[in-house]
């Protein structure tokens, strides 16, 4: 087995093409997954002092520490509440808009569509600072309403464009067939159109939820410390925590929702579904 670890032997054993493919895979995994794996390791390190590559003592010491911090536990709850509200409200607002843009032809359609690009064209922080000035005026600073609004802006473009491109890919003939056998327009929508557009919609929902879970700069600005979501707490931890493990544990707690959501929606997530949100066809 160890003979294979000699690069020259390995090269001759698998052939030139395979060899370079393995190198590519190795570089890819090291760059994109190495840091993450290192962080996971650190999260379970009770002791990790300088010259050691691997922790001297393993355990759950820092997990216990984090769950004893009242403000950190509170930030987890607040993050979930905000993300759930944001996802719900944007679904109700944006999916119909996506359907309208995809299925109807009317004057101003293109303008509506492009208006959602605004959320991504102007620098986010510029929008946030300007909103913050308005929020002060209307007493929305440090409220759930304010934070949810900020989070909605964050992912609105995807929430309209992705479902729009998904609805467009449903053939009209399929809807017409349903109408021909006697289904009403509402029933056609829920039984034919919606299920077929589901992949695009799920990816959009996933984006909105995860986008809300990780939005930090706007929340930091508008939450004014009263609403402190996990990412905002994470900023604090990264910038001034004494032990590297605290950040590692907290980062993993922050990643868990993503992993769960991706696992639940894995059959929908593919290059086509994701890139659909960036085209205006």
């Amino acid at each position: 087995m160890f003979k294979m670890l000699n690069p020259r032997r390995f090269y001759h054993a698998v052939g030139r093409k395979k060899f370079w493919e393995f190198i590519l895979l190795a570089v890819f995994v090291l760059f994109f997954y190495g840091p993450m794996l290192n962080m996971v390791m650190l999260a379970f390190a009770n002791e990790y002092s300088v010259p050691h590559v691997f922790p001297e003592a393993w355990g759950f010491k820092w997990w216990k520490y984090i769950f004893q911090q009242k403000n950190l536990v509170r930030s987890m709850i607040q993050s979930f509440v905000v993300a759930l509200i944001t996802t719900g409200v944007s679904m109700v607002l944006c999916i119909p808009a996506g359907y309208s843009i995809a299925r109807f032809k009317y004057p101003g359609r293109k303008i509506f569509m492009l208006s959602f690009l605004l959320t991504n064209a102007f620098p986010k922080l510029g929008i946030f600072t300007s909103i913050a000035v308005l929020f002060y005026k209307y007493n929305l600073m440090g409220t759930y309403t304010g934070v949810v609004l900020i989070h909605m802006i964050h992912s609105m473009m995807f929430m309209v464009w992705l479902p729009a491109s998904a609805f467009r890919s449903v053939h009209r003939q399929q809807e017409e067939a349903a109408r021909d056998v006697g289904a009403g327009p509402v029933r056609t929508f829920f039984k034919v159109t919606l299920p077929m557009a589901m992949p695009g919609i799920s990816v959009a929902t996933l984006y909105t939820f995860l986008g809300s879970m990780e939005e930090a700069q706007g929340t930091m600005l508008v939450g004014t410390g009263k609403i402190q979501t996990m990412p905002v707490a994470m900023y604090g931890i990264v910038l001034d925590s004494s032990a590297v493990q605290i950040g590692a544990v907290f980062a993993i707690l922050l990643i868990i929702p993503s992993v769960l959501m991706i696992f639940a929606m894995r059959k929908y997530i593919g290059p086509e579904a994701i890139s659909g949100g960036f085209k205006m066809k």
Partner: protein
Amino acid sequence: MSKKAKQMLVAYGLVIPAFMVVMLTVAYPILAAVIKSFQDPKTGEFTWANYTYFFTDPVQLKNLLYTLYVVIMTVVIAIVVAYLLALYLRFTKSKIAKTIGTLYLLPRFVPAMCAVYAMITIIRDSGLINRIGLLFGKDIHLGMMYHASGIITMNLWFNIPFAALMITAGLGAIPDSIIEGARDVGAGKFKTFTSMILPLSLKDVVVASTFVFMSNVGSFTTPYLMGGTSPKMLGIALFDQFNKYLAYNRSAALSVIMFLICSVSAFVYIYSNLKEKEWEK
């Protein structure tokens, strides 16, 4: 009411709520910011001073050039690497290609600050690379923390998978028959690439580069956690103007400047998207 008018009503009814949210929370604040950027902070009179400050103050000018440097480096490296990766994923049908094809979707869903933190655990002075170096008796100081190279590395981590995803979707749309056709009439590999594959995928390259460009001009999390104190990325400079110096007019001017930088690439993006519309009809 005619059927057509009814349909129109439904179409507008579905799109208006989302549109109104964008108008109130994005368009209006942007407008307010633009107006504010031309006002004197004390008297409220018209002035260019907020803008000239960012182009005459040596510190701010340095921030601007630094940001452009980081962003352009990110775009160029990310697009070249992503294109090669996408070509590999499109034209190689091996187990390794498939593995990479799945693995490269994940970075898109990892919360930004977690990824940044994971990278910090690797490259900081007492990070993994330094510790591995010590095993071999070398004291490696990468010097990537608080330096442009660290920010660029992190941007590549975020943007290579994203750009590769967009380009792969484009390359996937090129039918095998076109490539075989080119090969049949005697075109070599290189010729097939330059005359068929590259022109057909150029649009996706443009879309990918504009998005990489736009999302990095105003980037916040990476430079906030990894960047040094001078020079700063524009996102941080903006945050400082707003949060530290409470200079609302200047921060408005800076967001407009960032928007103008982005809009150059947004224009390219919209242009390349609309051009396609002509022949697709």
